[in-house]
């Protein structure tokens, strides 16, 4: 949106909540990240362009872009960037902010991340079977047909547990995560530009 141009809330927030984020200001727009990205072709904006948009204050466009959601965390961009910008971590930050502001892209797989985390928070460990079935049933019901065969095979080879195996001291983990959530939400209240 033109009216948001030059207003740098998101840029400032991204810099603040990404370790080493200050380097963002020195982006040369050289495109090493965009050229390196394995899923670059499927992104509506390359990481380079996303940084340009961020710096142009196009906050809504940035948050609704599918780019962060197609990041596979391969870190090629980060290690090759001539300005040493932690691009992969920036993608995490942007996803986080997008979720928090409920502004994320329709292709975003928040569902996947959330079901994953849901299992972790329930059992302390991830649970592929539950994850695959639940996520796919809710998001891609038709894919299950193809996946079912695979699931069966994996079962046969003992590579998929039908039941989760929880950790012993769940209360401890729950307490830790709750406290972390508390601190973070508190922090963000302060980060938020007024």
């Amino acid at each position, binding site marked *: 949106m033109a009216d948001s141009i030059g207003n740098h809330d998101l840029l400032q927030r991204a810099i603040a909540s990404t370790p080493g984020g200050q380097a963002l200001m020195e982006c040369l727009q050289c495109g090493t990240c965009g050229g390196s990205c394995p899923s670059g072709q*499927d992104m509506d904006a390359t990481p380079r362009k996303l940084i340009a948009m961020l710096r142009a204050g196009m906050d809504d466009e940035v948050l609704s872009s599918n780019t962060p959601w*197609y990041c*596979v965390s*391969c*870190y090629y961009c980060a290690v090759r960037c001539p300005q040493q910008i932690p691009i992969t971590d920036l993608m995490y930050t942007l996803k*986080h902010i997008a979720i928090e502001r409920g502004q994320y892209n329709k292709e975003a797989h928040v569902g996947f991340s959330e079901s994953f985390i849901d299992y972790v928070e329930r059992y302390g460990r991830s649970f592929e079977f539950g994850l695959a079935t639940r996520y796919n049933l809710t998001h891609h019901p038709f*894919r299950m047909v193809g996946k079912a065969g695979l699931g069966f095979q994996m079962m046969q080879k003992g*590579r998929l547990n039908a039941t989760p195996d929880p950790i012993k001291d769940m209360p401890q983990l729950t307490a830790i995560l709750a*406290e972390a959530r508390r*601190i973070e939400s508190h922090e963000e209240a302060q980060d938020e530009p007024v």
Partner: protein
Amino acid sequence: MSQSRQYAYYPGCSMRATAHAYDRTARRVSEMLDLSLQEIEDWNCCGATEYMSISALQAYSLVARNLSLAATQNATDLVSPCSACYLNLRKTNDNMKKYPDLNDQVNQALAAGGISYTPGALRVRHLLDVIVEDVGFDAVAALVKQPLKGMKVAPYYGCLIVRPSVDGYDTEYPTHLDKLMQTLGAGVVDFPLKTHCCGGHMTQISEETAFELIRRILHNAADYGADAIVTLCPMCQLNLDAYQPQVNAMFGTRFNIPILFFTQLMGLAFGLTFDEAEIGSEIIPALAALGKIGQESPEQVAPKRRDKKALPMPIP
């Protein structure tokens, strides 16, 4: 015989299911190498690549619990065979050290669970690094009973064992797995995509994206005439192995390349039986490829001399 080396061991969730072959062979091989792996008591998930995007601090705290538990065991090194777990453990350890504020917040969270962690108290390492650095190629060679001569493997590292940055190894063209495979007697192809991405979690989110990445790797391995791809990460193995049929379906290709864990091949070379080496747990059967072991393959013959008029190559 020297006192066996002690390590705190973090298997990670996949090792209990999709990659149990890796877990079991890792333990067997370590034992043969006189490495004692003590599994962390009641460890929890590392958050994979998902947690970071939902909540950074929770993600760090989740991992920090494992570090805290591991620190109570009498070992200075924490070993994980899973690249994703390895990265998360390492990243948390490093960033807590690097950013004092983060350290305070994470420890504040841990305190709620009655525990704490001093960043740097542990050295986080990948199993492959331990085998290469602490055991060494000579000690490995000494244990080889059945050289893998005749079989050609493509060493596939994936992303997270060398990136964002691991001191000592090239972030894009590492060679320690190559050397390890050579030590086992296997033929090794100089695999250009050795550190490219296997698609990670995209298999769950966008098959179009993920399967293309998988196809590239299989295609390149086939181009280079590899009989098998050897991996060191459960996620890489799962994607390349389990989705291979679907990739073939999507692109009309006929790839049939078994994907094995390096510990499985070490086991075989050290004389384990197929069962002990968990051969058979893979979706794409490895028997054909393993059948080549012992046969004389053309690649074992010295490469032909450079043409006289050819220009000199740079010193590698």
